[in-house]
């Protein structure tokens, strides 16, 4: 979840009035936000709705509260629409055909009218970071650059450039580097290089005079791409892989800056290939379709009577212009939002506008029969028997290391489910047996009074080609005795007792297994099928675990007894 830091004064100014601490916390619920902390003049706020990137900035959050508190729904006049482009004043971006398969989309606008102060610059950088990291999936689908626009020679060219021949001075360095060297030598190159390194040509933004703007989505140039407080004219561009997300992100930044008193100047983007919105898109661009919802449907989902007029008033507090007709409302989606997929999304805005407290809880009235799963019922019977036999129940983790599951057990990893992207060697295999966990427990418990009788009933997973997933999950029972006297016969007797009371006969056959002493190991059969093993743990295995006490153990597929 994104967290932002908000300048308190700027925030209250944009929200229309100061908001006291008592009032702020419940109010933030309207934005699914929580106050995470406070410093003098600074609010730390956590935003929980990942579909509302418009709330991840000072201006965006303030706008939501301002409208909710009764402020007018803002009307932004700089948006182009289908068939109604804005005047661009000659500002345009020409896109290279080769980018279609690399990073096909770009949206941009210029900013003028007042100078950017220190707090505004800081906030703009924060907005950029949150948008590109959370909404833009760590710059893969959205990356953003801000430039001082006074010296830009139009049109700007969005190019697919030769990684080795193209050179410029990146922000933070003094000398020019090739795009490829930037991936290797610049910290941002190392962090985000994986997004472009597989391509033969890299995205590159330069002005008509050939001056570098940036290497999207990696780094700005140290020249045009350096922005400082006091700049009066800015150029903002966003590149990405998903046109609609990109346009929404650009709209969010534009609306935020507009709210702060800047003038937004549209830019035309010219593609040599088709996009879903045509070959020329003047951005910021409004593409959202209206969303309709029946007020009766909303009422049913919310458990209240609701008229269309009431619904219109409610979504209005959430910043949405809506119209009622018959029993239906039609919502015009705000420019900075793209989270209305279905009528339920309108229903939620109605709920948020009214506040959850406006909906009294009602006990569910339907009668249903409660029931445990069959394996849980069986497991409980088995657990009771194990406890009666004097065993302590244990619960262990299901992920473990090759060292524990294979090396120490003297087993190859055959048949085990292994993790392709383990966070560490300690969690690279899903357990296929409970025995390693029981032995790991014994290995750290030598100071506990003997005898040790422990067991676990839990899941294991194994490769199994007969299932669609190529794996199978089983519910196993495993038990271990560690004691001077621990032996095959005791475990056998305990198993026989468990089987007897579960209504089964414990039939065994001689077998061998590297984990057990040869000649003191048996397979456990049910209906002729092997469902488990029992025996005395091999001293080499005990040695591998650093265990000093003799151990006898058994493990069965408990689910087979169902």
């Amino acid at each position, binding site marked *: 979840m994104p967290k932002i830091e908000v300048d308190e004064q700027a925030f209250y100014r944009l929200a229309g009035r100061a908001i006291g601490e008592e009032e702020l916390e419940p109010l933030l*619920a309207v934005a*699914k936000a929580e106050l995470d902390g406070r410093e003098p003049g600074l609010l730390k706020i956590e935003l929980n709705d*990942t*579909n509302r990137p418009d709330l991840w900035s000072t201006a965006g959050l303030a706008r939501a509260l301002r409208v909710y508190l009764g402020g007018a729904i803002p009307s932004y006049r700089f948006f182009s629409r289908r068939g109604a482009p804005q005047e661009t004043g000659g500002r345009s971006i020409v896109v290279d055909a080769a980018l279609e398969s690399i990073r096909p989309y770009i949206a941009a606008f210029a900013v003028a009218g007042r100078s950017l102060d220190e707090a505004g610059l800081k906030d703009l950088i924060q907005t950029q970071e949150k948008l590109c990291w959370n909404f833009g999936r760590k710059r893969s*689908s959205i990356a953003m650059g801000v430039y001082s626009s006074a010296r830009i020679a139009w049109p700007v060219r969005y190019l697919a450039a030769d990684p080795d021949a193209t050179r410029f001075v990146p922000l933070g360095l003094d000398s020019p580097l090739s795009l490829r060297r930037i991936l290797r030598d610049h910290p941002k190159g190392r962090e985000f290089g994986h997004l472009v390194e597989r391509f033969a040509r890299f995205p590159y933004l330069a002005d008509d005079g050939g001056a570098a703007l940036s290497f999207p989505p990696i780094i700005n140039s140290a020249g045009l791409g350096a922005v400082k407080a006091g700049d009066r004219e800015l150029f903002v561009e966003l590149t990405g892989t*998903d046109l609609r997300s990109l346009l929404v992100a650009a709209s969010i930044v534009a609306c935020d800056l507009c709210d702060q008193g800047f003038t937004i100047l549209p830019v035309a983007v010219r593609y040599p290939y088709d996009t879903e919105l045509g070959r020329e898109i003047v951005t910021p661009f409004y593409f959202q379709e209206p969303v309709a919802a029946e007020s009766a449907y909303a009422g*049913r*989902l*919310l*458990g209240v009577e609701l008229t269309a007029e009431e619904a219109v008033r409610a979504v209005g507090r959430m910043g949405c212009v809506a119209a009622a007709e018959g029993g239906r409302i039609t919502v015009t989606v705000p420019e900075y939002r793209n989270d209305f*997929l*279905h*009528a339920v999304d309108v229903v*939620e805005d109605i*709920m948020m506008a009214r506040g*959850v407290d406006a909906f009294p*809880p*009602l*006990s*569910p*009235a*339907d009668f*249903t029969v*409660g*029931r*445990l*799963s069959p394996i*849980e019922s069986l497991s409980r019977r088995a*657990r009771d028997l194990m*406890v*009666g*036999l*004097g*065993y302590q*129940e*244990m*619960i*262990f*983790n*299901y*992920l473990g290391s090759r060292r524990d599951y294979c090396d120490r057990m003297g087993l190859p990893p055959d048949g085990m489910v*292994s993790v*392709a*992207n383990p966070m560490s060697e300690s*969690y690279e295999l899903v357990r296929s047996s409970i025995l390693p*966990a029981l032995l790991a*427990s014994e*290995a*750290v*418990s030598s100071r*506990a*009074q003997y*005898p040790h009788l*422990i067991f676990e009933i839990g*899941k294991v*997973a194994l490769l199994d080609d007969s299932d*669609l*997933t190529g*794996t199978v*999950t089983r519910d196993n029972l495993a038990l271990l005795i560690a004691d001077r006297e621990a032996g095959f016969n005791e475990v056998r007797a305990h198993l026989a007792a468990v089987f007897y009371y579960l209504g089964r006969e414990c039939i065994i056959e001689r077998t061998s297994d590297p984990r057990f002493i040869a000649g003191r190991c048996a397979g456990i059969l049910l209906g002729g099928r092997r469902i488990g093993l029992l025996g005395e743990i091999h001293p080499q295995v005990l040695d591998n675990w650093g265990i000093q006490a003799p151990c006898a153990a058994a493990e069965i597929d408990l689910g087979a007894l169902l």
Partner: protein
Amino acid sequence: MSADLQSLHPLEIKVLRADGSELSAAKLLGKLGLGIGQWNQATSWLLGKGLLEEKERLLRVFYELTELGEAQRTGGTPEERMLRAAEERGAMSLPEIAASAGIESREAGSAFGQLSREGLLALDDRKRVVVAGTTRSKRMETTRALLDRAASGALEEAALSAEELAVIAGISRKRGAGSAAFKIAEREEVVYRLTSEGEAARRQLAEAGSSGEEIGRLTPDLLASGSWRGKSFREYNIAVPPARILVGRRNPYAEFLQWVKDKLVSLGFEEFDGPLVETEFWNGDALFMPQFHAARDIHDVYYVKEPSHAKAIEQPWLDRVAEVHESGGATGSRGWGYRFDRDFTRKLILRSQGTVLSAKQLPKARIPGKYFGIVRCFRYDQVDATHGADFYQTEGIVLGEHVNLRTLLGLLKMFAEEVAGAKEIKYVPGYFPFTEPSIEVHIRHPKLGWFELGGSGIFRPEVTKPLGVDVPVLAWGLGIDRMALMQLGLSDLRELFTGDLEGVRLRRRG
């Protein structure tokens, strides 16, 4: 009786309670019915406890019957045998009478001399031994009495009369006693007396009526013979700490999870379960999480290495879910508007959320229906006190024609009250990719204060309709681990899965 006295052994009690101020083996063994070994044991314990002290050590002289003496006791002394022979067979020469009575000739002379001096035998004119008188001398009678008495134990010098001492002196030797009837033995004996604490103990034992004759362990023999009747039983020191017992026991965390399961069953929920390995399809796609969603990054779930993909996804669910992602299908949604990746959806992962089972339950769920699962999930998280590599999630769904936001709140209220014991409840709008509206429930726990008990919402139609459900479905999840930690007095989630046996043995629910 004081705790110290309760710890006295019956032997000690017997000695403490014996009559008299001088306690010695000689005086008490017979009276108390003790063996010398028991006596030694009891006195050494009492000395150790400071209840007894040594009064003095006495040298005591005993006369013990030798083998010769034993033979004389049963067969008669030479004098007795000679006298009897003379009386029975009449006059004989001395060698004749010695042979007849089985007396060696050297003994025969001294025996005859003694008897003739005491006027019992005499020589006639033909030098034959004849009877001269019938009254046995005092000396002979004393000798006989000493022999007979010594049969039941050595004779102590101090217990003999002056006359007896005079007689026994003639028939006893200190060394070379093979030729005498008695051997003289000297023994040192310790005489004890009670200390003042011992006197106090004696008084207390007397007051409590404790004699040391009480029954210790009630045995089958005592029951069979009935000999316990009329006797009392030795009191135990019940202040002694009990021995530690290793009990067979449920794991307290498992017990807590079972308690939650029972609670949910009692509220009408049916339990579901499922495999640890799932597909991206069920773990995310079926829940209408777009494939490009941030939470579906490589760094948020564990992927299975081999096989990396399921062979197929069950139909018709695959086609329907793909359609709803791309265009919304027949759900009334516009969908996410991207090209659904049918390879990605087959990717195998370790289940990252219990909601996957809620999704899988939808095609087979009853309406109305309530379902839950407490299932192990895996998250790509750095393992620390608040994050485990795998952990339990508690999740479920409620299906019904008439469920809505208000019944969702009612359900959360029921959980808060029944499962968490909360009285103060707060509902906050939340965000989950698969529910709309979404609600978080916060509670004021009696001990933990305000915290988020769970997340919930109404499943989006994009989730339910492709899976064949046309009624609203409430989906909920409860975070019960904080309650578990609190109940078990723990602060680290890793402790819930510990292998430390002693720790688990001692752990209990608060």
